[in-house]
């Protein structure tokens, strides 16, 4: 599929394949139907020239009716059903089943107009977030509660770094309005809705850099609400995580909980 961006996800192979045959099918249906229209026009023009006298309408014979109407309709219906059935499995594995146990867990937060990615750290528990503490300039864009022990080792990053070959469980949330989390290279899209937690599972396979976009109009910066996914090897992922961990703990240690200076409004 030369139009799609290169695929980097495990399920993307199936996805590309499915999309490919779907597009092929409708493309040929499109071509045939347009040809039929043109053909009808040409035939009519010729008939008009050759026999100016009108013929009385022939009642359509029953076999002809079957052949020209019922059969194509059945065929097309069968095609639609085939499309739906073949793609359903993909939907089921990505959305209707629980994620793998050993999945890398990352929380994605959409904010007007940026994406933030939070790794739960060694304790594998996301720390508590307090909306009132949100203060991006002061380095706390998500409002991590410094008093919560779980939040001390949480890593917040503006880019998403994932190891290749391991299942990932994304937890989607939004701070303000609806955003659309879209990684074209991973064939992945889901809205981040404020007040709701969404989940997305996939397995990145091919190391590389993939853009992350926002696909739900969310305000004037919607078009530049972009981030990056870097798929790296497992070992590089571990070392990155470890270094960020150290950094996170260090900063958490030296600036003691100071109430962030944000206004609040009921």
């Amino acid at each position, binding site marked *: 599929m030369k139009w*799609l*961006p290169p695929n980097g996800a495990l399920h993307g192979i199936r*996805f590309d394949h499915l*999309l490919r045959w*779907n597009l092929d099918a*409708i493309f040929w*249906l*499109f071509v045939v*139907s347009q040809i039929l*229209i043109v053909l*009808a026009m040409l035939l*009519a023009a010729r008939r008009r020239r050759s026999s100016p006298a*009108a013929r*009385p*309408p022939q009642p*359509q014979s029953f076999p002809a009716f079957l052949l020209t*109407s019922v059969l194509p*309709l059945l065929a*097309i219906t069968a095609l639609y059903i085939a*499309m*739906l059935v073949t*793609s359903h499995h*993909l*939907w*089921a594995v*990505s*959305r209707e089943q629980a994620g793998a146990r050993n999945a890398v867990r990352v929380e994605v937060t959409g*904010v*007007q107009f940026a994406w933030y990615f939070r790794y739960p750290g060694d304790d594998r528990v996301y720390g508590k977030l307090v*909306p*009132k503490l*949100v*203060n991006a300039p002061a380095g706390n864009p998500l*409002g991590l509660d410094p008093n919560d022990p779980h939040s001390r080792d949480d890593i917040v990053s503006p880019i998403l770094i994932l190891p290749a070959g391991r299942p990932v469980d994304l937890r*989607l949330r939004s*701070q*303000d*309005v*609806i955003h659309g989390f*879209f990684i074209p290279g991973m*064939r*992945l*899209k*889901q*809205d981040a*809705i*404020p*007040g*709701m937690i969404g989940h997305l599972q996939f397995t990145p396979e091919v190391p590389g850099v993939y*853009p992350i976009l926002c696909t*739900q*109009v969310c*305000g*004037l910066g*919607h*078009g*530049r609400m972009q981030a990056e996914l870097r798929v790296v090897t497992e070992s590089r992922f571990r070392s990155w995580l470890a270094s960020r961990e150290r950094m996170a703990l260090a900063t958490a240690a030296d600036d003691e909980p100071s109430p962030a200076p*944000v*206004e*609040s409004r009921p």
Partner: protein
Amino acid sequence: MNAPRAQPAAPSRGFLGRRIFTTDHRALAILYLLLGLAAVIVGTLLSLVIRIHRVWPTVPFPLYGILRPEDYLAVVTMHGTLMVFFVLTVVPQSAFPNLVLPAQIGTDRMAFPRLNAAAFWLTLASFCVLVAAFFVPQGAPISGWTSYPPLSAIAATGPGQGAGMDCWLFAIGLFCIAAVASSANFLATILARRGPGMSFGRLPLTVWSWLTSSALTVIAFSTLFAAAAMLFADRHCGTSFFIPASEVISGIARTGGGGSPLLWLHLFWFFGHPEVYISILPGMGLASALLANFTRRPVLGYRVMVVATLTIGFLGLGVWGHHMFVSGMNPYAGTAFGLTTIAIAVPSSAEVLTWLAMLFRGRMRFTTPMLFTLGFISFFIAGGLTGPILAQPALDAYLHNTFFVVAHFHLVMAMAGVFSLFAGIYYWYPLLTGRLMNEMLGKAHFWVSLIGAYGTFFPMHFAGLAGEPRHYAQLAGPVESFPSLIPVERGITFAALTLAAAQLIFLFNVFSSARKGVRAGENPWRATTHEWCPGTHPRTRGEPYLYGPNSGDTEDFLPQWELAPPYPSGLKPE
């Protein structure tokens, strides 16, 4: 068998009384058409702004300057709203029925003329309020024609979400009331004012479409009205139907809330999907009728078409979730909505196949309305076929809100819809002016529009496959693949300019033919349905669409009407 006709019109009410503050449905039809024309002109200019900005983002617009990102979003929002509501709802669902519906069912007036007129004035008011959004502080809303909350519920989320959004909501509210009122009138007219002999089995297919779409309108627009009322309460009365518990908007934490933004999505699309069928069903009915007329053959499978129309209308109420596959709705619901959506594609395909079959049966005449009908079919197929792809949740998870969707709905709604409007206008123009529109200009208009439209909207599929999202003012950011789309975008813009320029031919034709067009005579298309009946008080004698050499005695068609024998003077027909 010509009945005496044309007593002089009511004297002494003056131009205003007769043409403006009127309850006559044909005068209202003209008013609606003018309103649609105003809206389509604004909407088209906005679409050109969109197209130009996308490829030359730094070129200043005359009188305005360089577009800011929020201006772009405002333009897109207003473009979508104007086109969907004031063009593709007002013209096929209000103007056309006012023009021909009473005549087509063999009667001479609507069931409730005053209600009908009131609906027009409300629609006009709604239009004015909507356009006013451009001129309020901070300008028009930026949240798209779908206005998802919380963006649309909290003024602080962006420019235009204050007064502009209020205008939008208010306009939509007025529009809903008007739409329900006029549909109630159409329903009562179709069900209870049919003329003598006009049984259900003899209703023209356009009337069946209007019956279906009017029923849909009552349901869909009431839903939208309730949703808009709730959104209004959220904005101004401190409620939180759609506002979640805690939010941080421009650095300010808000608590309270606890509502569900998803609820709006459900309500909006429960309106939105029926709405797209409201805008296309009349076109589908018209296509069948015109195919019959211009191939001089009866409609194939009249009953099948009626059943298909009703089925589409009915199923249309149960597919709204296909706009929400990736919104975080329950994934099982996604599967179910995929299924219902495929189900609705089947009756649509049945209609398409019937039209194709009709093309091969008769002796096609390439008049302008016929060409536009062919264009309608072509676009309906081109746009409709991507529907079953979008209907698969797994594939939509990539394609949602990309230009693939934009291509889908512009082909099926914008182009098929607008082409059916053109077909209707070229066809019914003699009813308005007594003249035909110029055929040469009409054909030029058709071919340039056809090529322009495919040139504009076909390449959008590729942009969509490349992942280009909607509502992006510029293709910027870390996405390497997007710059390679610039040539495609540029081509689209040139095609769109051509397409819009072609409409100038149409406008010229409309206005010049009103004076200089060929006189149409009694029944220029030799049609069978009642709107072409030369007399008054017709009686229906049979099915619509009886065409073919055997149908009439001397003509190749058998009109549906039969005129009352002239009565001896002074005797009322009773």
